[in-house]
């Protein structure tokens, strides 16, 4: 079966980790993940400037590794991203900011990408909250 997984919670919130565990279990179960969509505060997961304390689980790194290993389509809402200081090199140049902060493996795009993927997949599962 084909899944779309949408995340709404920031990287420090439990549901960001729960979404990763769900995604891992979905692939391990032989299913496909058509798209990951990072919306609202979940865009922080794709921020390459976040630094975790050494004795804490680095969830953004775990997501990056997971996306890279499985070559997943990871879309970050561009409107949610820009207002939280998350820019790719093109946006950094456009708005005259000193650095791109979007981690590799992610792309900035619009909410339409969530809608399109949800229409094509068998299931949309959303993760947010505590």
């Amino acid at each position: 079966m084909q899944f779309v997984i949408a995340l709404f919670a920031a990287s420090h919130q439990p549901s960001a980790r729960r979404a990763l565990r769900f995604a891992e279990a979905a692939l391990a179960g032989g299913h496909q993940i058509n798209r990951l969509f990072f919306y609202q505060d979940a865009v922080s997961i794709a921020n390459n400037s976040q630094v975790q304390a050494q004795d804490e689980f680095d969830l953004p790194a775990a997501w990056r590794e997971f996306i890279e290993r499985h070559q997943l389509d990871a879309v970050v809402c561009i409107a949610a991203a820009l207002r939280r200081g998350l820019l790719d090199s093109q946006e950094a140049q456009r708005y005259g900011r000193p650095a791109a902060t979007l981690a590799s493996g992610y792309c900035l795009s619009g909410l339409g990408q969530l809608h399109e993927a949800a229409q094509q997949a068998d299931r949309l599962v959303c993760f947010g909250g505590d």
Partner: protein
Amino acid sequence: MTTLHILSTSPFADQRLASCLRLLSPGDGLLLCGDAVYALNPDCAPRQALELMPEQIALYALQEDLDARGLHDWPARLQVVDYPAFVALTLDYARSNSWL
């Protein structure tokens, strides 16, 4: 069309569980994860409400969240699930609704 409702916030912090209970239809499922599993605390009003749900509404909770909070006194109707079972549940129901 059956719906799996996914709750992750504590019933002692907001009204999501109360709202969700009013919306549940026969054939639907309710999955508690994160702080929402505190609804299973013995002798509290949310637990009583869950135990009084119609039989046709299935009740699930995520194992790791029960373990993390030391909750082991479960209602008889509760089905405890791990992540592979969570994935299977989203396929058993026609759609899922996360109470964000």
